[in-house]
């Protein structure tokens, strides 16, 4: 995609007006300051915005948006910039509205089971604020230590525990947002089932194409009374994926069900030394939660299914809270997997495909075959219980020939996900990265309906242009993958 030329095009009058709205201290416009904002977790495409503003109040967002309209420049909202699909790329430059300084937890109401937060609140801050109350906010992306709830809302983020508890859309009750014309819209609220369309459900996952969230009401979930977390060890990836299918088919709905293959195990052991067996073909982290009284039965069934598939349960961690040291250690290892991968390769590319869970053995075999065909090392760490794969393709970005092979392999994997009846993104979003896949998933009529809905909110396309939905001229295939982290 052709990207606009770098920062120079904004009128000095707009800069002065923006500065009046947010103050000098909440505005960046020097080239060297802007470089940080040239991309997010998707580093293939870069473009610096012309200016970055950091509003601290909703009314400032309103004013900023009105100025963008007045001066006819595009704008794009950004949270922590952990998006893996280029959702916050400032395509065409313009004004980046960075929400990280609207970071207050405005209210926690346990009796009514909700919290009200500003969009810049980091996911884990809310988890910490709720610790010990008996309630939690369920969506827990692996990047939860950095990513914001506003960003989670935009991409409908998942995480390991969404298998049982659902993704972001299942836990957002209401949103206050500034629309691309500068008006303020409130959808949903403190009570369930308001009259009218479920706009809250529609707004979650809009990837910034409907406007900018300024306040979010989230649902709070009761903590489980107890849980057990198991480490299942297998000789082969096949045995592990068959176990996943076996567990689901047996009617067990784990709280989390994560798989790591040998390459990933080695990277994590080098980094954290948790005690994963480095000679294993694959491990499964299997977590169940609920009432202590009911857990023994499920635990027994899990042991049996692991054994039937030739595996062994190497660790069994019983817990009452999610703060117990061994529990914390195993999840820290899992959620930091992408940091560890740097030990194996200078550059890597993570994909985010989804297949029906019963197709996991097939897709993992296919990934191995594709890796062999293209001579690439591919590590796997992913949300097995959801069928949400994250193959990590290792390469050296200095070698254009390798880059080309990684790109071809990635597309082949995602095409196979579609062929299996799945999707090209389970939680990272379409962003700019995967727009070319949208016509493979949806018909022209489907996409026309989506464009019509976007036009309702964003008639001039000034907010987050060139995102999510292919534009009129079609979409170019992306030329190269890059280093990325993952949920």
């Amino acid at each position: 995609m052709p990207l606009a030329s770098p920062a120079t095009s904004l009128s000095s009058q707009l800069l002065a007006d923006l500065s009046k709205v947010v103050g000098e201290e909440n505005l960046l416009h020097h080239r060297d300051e802007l470089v940080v904002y040239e991309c997010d977790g998707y580093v293939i495409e870069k473009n610096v915005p012309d200016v970055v503003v950091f509003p601290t109040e909703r009314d400032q967002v309103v004013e900023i948006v009105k100025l963008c309209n007045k001066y006819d420049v595009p704008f794009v909202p950004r949270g922590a910039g952990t998006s893996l699909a280029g959702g916050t790329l400032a395509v065409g430059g313009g004004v980046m509205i960075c929400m990280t300084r609207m970071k207050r937890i405005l209210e926690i109401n346990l009796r009514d089971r909700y919290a009200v937060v500003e969009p810049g609140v980091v996911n884990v801050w809310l988890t910490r604020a709720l610790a010990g109350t008996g309630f939690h906010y369920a969506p827990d992306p692996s990047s939860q230590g950095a990513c914001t709830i506003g960003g989670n809302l935009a991409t409908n983020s998942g995480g390991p525990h969404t298998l049982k508890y659902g993704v972001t859309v299942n836990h957002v009750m209401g949103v206050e947002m500034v629309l691309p014309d500068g008006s303020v819209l409130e959808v949903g609220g403190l009570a369930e089932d308001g009259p009218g369309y479920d706009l809250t459900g529609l707004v979650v996952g809009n990837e910034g194409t409907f406007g900018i969230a300024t306040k979010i009401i989230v649902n709070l979930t009761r903590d489980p009374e107890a849980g057990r977390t198991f480490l299942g060890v297998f000789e082969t990836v096949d045995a592990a994926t068959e176990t996943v299918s076996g567990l689901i088919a047996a009617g067990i709905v784990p709280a989390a069900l994560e798989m790591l293959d040998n390459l990933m195990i080695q990277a994590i052991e080098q980094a954290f030394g948790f005690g994963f067996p480095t000679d294993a073909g694959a491990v499964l982290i299997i977590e169940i939660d609920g009432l202590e009284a009911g857990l023994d039965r499920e635990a027994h069934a899990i042991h049996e299914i692991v054994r039937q598939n030739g595996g062994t349960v190497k660790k069994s961690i019983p817990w009452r809270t999610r703060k117990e040291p061994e529990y914390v250690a195993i999840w820290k290892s899992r959620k930091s997997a992408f940091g560890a991968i740097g030990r194996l390769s200078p550059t890597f590319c993570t994909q985010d495909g989804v297949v029906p869970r019963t197709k996991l053995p097939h897709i993992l075999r296919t990934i191995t075959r594709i890796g062999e065909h293209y001579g690439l090392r591919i590590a796997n760490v992913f949300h097995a219980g959801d069928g949400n794969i994250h193959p990590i393709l290792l390469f050296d970005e200095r070698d254009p020939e390798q880059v080309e092979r990684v790109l071809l392999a990635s597309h082949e994997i995602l095409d196979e996900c579609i062929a299996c009846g799945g999707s090209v993104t389970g939680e990272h979003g379409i962003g700019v990265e995967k727009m070319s896949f949208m016509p493979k998933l949806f018909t022209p009529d489907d996409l026309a309906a989506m464009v019509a809905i976007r036009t309702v909110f964003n008639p001039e396309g000034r907010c987050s242009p060139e995102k999510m939905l292919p534009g009129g001229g079609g979409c170019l295939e992306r030329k190269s993958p890059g280093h990325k982290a993952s949920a």
Partner: protein
Amino acid sequence: MDWPESSDAPPLGDGRRAVAVDRPDSVEVLREIVRRRAAEGLAIYPQGGKTALDYGGIPRRPGVALDTTALNSVIDYPAADMTITVGSGITLAKLQEVLATEGQFLPLDAPHPDSATLGGIYATNTCGPRRFGWGRPRDMIIGVSFVTADGKGVKGGGRVVKNVAGYDFPKLLTGSMGALGIITQMTLKVRPKPEASALVIAGYSRLGDLAADLARMNTSDTRPMMMDVLSPEAGYLLEAEANRGSHGLRERMWTLVLGYEDNAASVAWQVQRASAELSAGKIETHTTGEDSLTRAILLAISSFPADRIESIDGSSDHPSQSPLSFVASVRRGSVSAFLESLQLDRWLAVAHAGSGIIHAHANPLDLPEETWTGEIQRLRDAADRLGGSLILSRCPIEWKARLKVWGDRRGDWAIMEKIKGALDPAGVMNPGRFVGTI
């Protein structure tokens, strides 16, 4: 074209009658019908099991009934993936029967499951007591196909449980009252059927004591899948409906019904624990399996009130004597506060208390219309103060406009009207039924 007058003409609801009924047996045929009927200048009123024809505003202009019940096939049921894709005309009971063959179920309650279709349940966002523990219809739908007013087939979502590609049309269509298009197909997440279920039923002579227990159960050691409250008269009638022996519902007390579903060991422990946590003097527990009292009570609560209303007022089904029913939604902790403002000699109430939802029913003949107008406004204000809203789920037709079925205009209705305009600019789909000018 005018409204048909003949009483032989098929019903659209609210006393209106359809020009004709179209019953397509494939999506292709349905699309063709939509194109043809729209070209004829007719409105299209989707119908499933016809269990909620009087729900919403009055049909605005003459048109055809579009019957979806022939689109009732199971399209794909990969049980090991815990998903199912069905035609929208399948009934809830049939779906549950199919799922039961694999030991699975859809944790969703609706009245008249033998005739209510999934498409209708989703279009009206209908659910019952289990919503507290298992979620609402929106939480179970992962894919949807629908036909818009121009006869085009549109889909959103997919068949996998996690998928963020494209806008969430499955959520947009859930509760859309048929006003964006006709739902033809949906993919749902299903669950393994729990091994055991149980109810813990507690009676209270004072609402205040029940309120204290509701607050206590908000942080219970147990994890109930339902937490319902029945007003004294509602409990009495429901007991008659369930029609089994004596239990706590009989004595015209406020009743709290806690429900548990899990494996047997967990349910047994929770029943014991909940009984210990509650302050009520009279507590009865029922741990049962299939076809049990548990099931009868769940169905009775979900189906409340239509049949029962007739049994208390003896009225016929003449339209002007249809019951007066509302659904109030308030903050989850405020159900008892709302119930305090209800006059019990006028209203029967069943509340999904953990979710902040109150269903209440009255006989409109009990009082003059002006009194009801004031009463509804007062209760609307109460719901509003408690963070929510109130809609009239049923009321005499001639009162609908004045009493405002969907309540006063809200800040987000303008954008809803624009969404309607984007997908159905000519207002072909179910005109008059939904909020604002939709």
